[in-house]
């Protein structure tokens, strides 16, 4: 146990020394990895922000049914009956034209306008909620054709459009992440390959005097993982800085509209996932690199 600890500690320290010995090229590879990782991570952060934005607006989507203004009482109650018997409707609320006008009158902004009107311009309306949001679209179309219904409006139309765009964005971001994940493995593969070339003799001698492949791999795996982790941290810094600047601009905009809104950054859990992923991918790239070298050595004898 002591020996195992000491071997790992030794490998780890020699890894740090290797990184420190070539600070410029280490810094360079870390930056490349950081930029590579910041792209998909940044897209995820933006998507996440748009998602939370859309969910604050959508609530539960409703259909507003506006009756035509010449609809009679009977015609209105006919619609009410239909709504009651429609299984897809969870609940609905009737807003008479008088109620609607009263609402406007109570609103400070509109009270002057309303009192200057000679007659009520507002129609009777139903506010309809569906049991399942997937039925909304069909209900919206059908209800628009009901007799004396002037107009059916699906309130959350743009929200749902945004949602499907976000879904598409997620798929695109996932594909991008996978591709750039591969890129990270290749970048590490190559930097570790260069490291291996500078230590070819050490590896050969170590193997000759009884080193196992595990022993030879270990410092390189540490190097790959550490480089990946540093790249992950670089990506994190890039994203934090980017959000910081964007939030400065958003703050001005929000003040103009007197609302409060700011892009939220990576939470601790997401940051941890980023770091774990970047170091695992680095580890993987290093593993392939050393294994290929060891395999080439073995195939000689």
């Amino acid at each position: 146990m002591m020996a195992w600890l000491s071997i790992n500690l030794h490998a780890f320290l020699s890894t740090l020394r290797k990184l420190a010995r070539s600070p410029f090229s280490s810094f360079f590879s870390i930056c490349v990895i950081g930029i590579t990782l910041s792209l998909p991570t940044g897209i995820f952060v933006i998507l996440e922000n748009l998602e939370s934005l859309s969910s604050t607006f959508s609530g539960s989507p409703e259909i507003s049914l506006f009756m035509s203004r010449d609809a009679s009482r009977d015609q209105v109650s006919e619609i009410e009956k239909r709504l009651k018997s429609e299984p897809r409707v969870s609940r609905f609320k009737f807003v008479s034209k008088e109620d609607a006008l009263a609402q406007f009158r109570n609103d400070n902004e509109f009270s002057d306008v309303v009192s200057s009107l000679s007659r009520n311009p507002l129609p009777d309306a139903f506010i309809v909620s569906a049991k399942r949001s997937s039925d909304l679209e069909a209900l919206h179309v059908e209800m628009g054709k009901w007799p004396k219904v002037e107009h059916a409006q699906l309130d959350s139309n743009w929200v749902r459009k945004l949602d499907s765009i976000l879904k598409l964005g997620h798929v695109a971001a996932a594909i991008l992440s996978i591709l750039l994940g591969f890129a990270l493995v290749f970048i590490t593969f190559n930097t570790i390959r260069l490291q291996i070339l500078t230590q070819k003799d050490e590896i050969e001698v170590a193997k000759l005097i009884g080193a196992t492949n595990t022993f030879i791999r270990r410092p390189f795996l540490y190097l790959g993982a550490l480089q990946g982790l540093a790249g992950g941290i670089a990506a994190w810094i890039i994203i934090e800085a980017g959000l910081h600047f964007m939030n400065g601009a958003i703050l001005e905009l929000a003040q103009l509209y007197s609302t409060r809104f700011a892009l939220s950054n990576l939470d601790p859990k997401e940051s941890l996932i980023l770091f774990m992923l970047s170091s695992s991918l680095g580890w993987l790239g290093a593993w392939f690199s050393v294994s290929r070298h060891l395999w080439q050595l073995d195939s000689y004898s």
Partner: protein
Amino acid sequence: MISLKGVGKRYHGGFDALKDISFMIEKGEMAFVTGHSGAGKSTLLKLVAGIERPSSGSVLVSGQDLGRMRRSAIPYLRRNFGLVFQDHKLLSNRTVFENVFLPLQISAFDPREAPSRVRAALDKVGLLGRESAYPVELSGGEQQRLCIARAIVNRPSILIADEPTGNLDADYADAIMDMFKSFNQVGVTLLVSTHDESLLEKFRPRIITLHQGRISS
């Protein structure tokens, strides 16, 4: 301890470096392999050390058939050997101390006792004062002795040395031979190759003579 039966080694390209080699070396024995350059001495030592695999016949070391061993088991086998290579294979970016420390590191030797082990090995070959020097700062004879220190630091039961006195002055060569003799006296089995016949006259050890890949007597 070491037993070869009908061993042949054919290198890539079809060249037979060794043909039908059979001999046995008992535990605690000291044997020398001689022959002209190109006779197959290095190849023979590499087969015994498990660095090359035999093309035919069997190589048994401590009862284990090296030709049939799994590749992953070879490192553990090598740790029983002390190996002195013809081309030294010292690491130029490591100090004398670190070069000798490497085998202990590989075999996960207790790190608290390792430094004293390293110094004991350097003391035996007379390099105790040069711990922090780098191999390039050493003379040819000192480099050769450094190789020997690295080979014995693990206290191996078998020491395999490929031309350890090659290119050395007679005085240096004698000193190294005395060193081997003292290892043998404490029970280490030795297999040493040399093309220097004059050394053998002095010690009269058991001799295996190779001629064009075959044993000649």
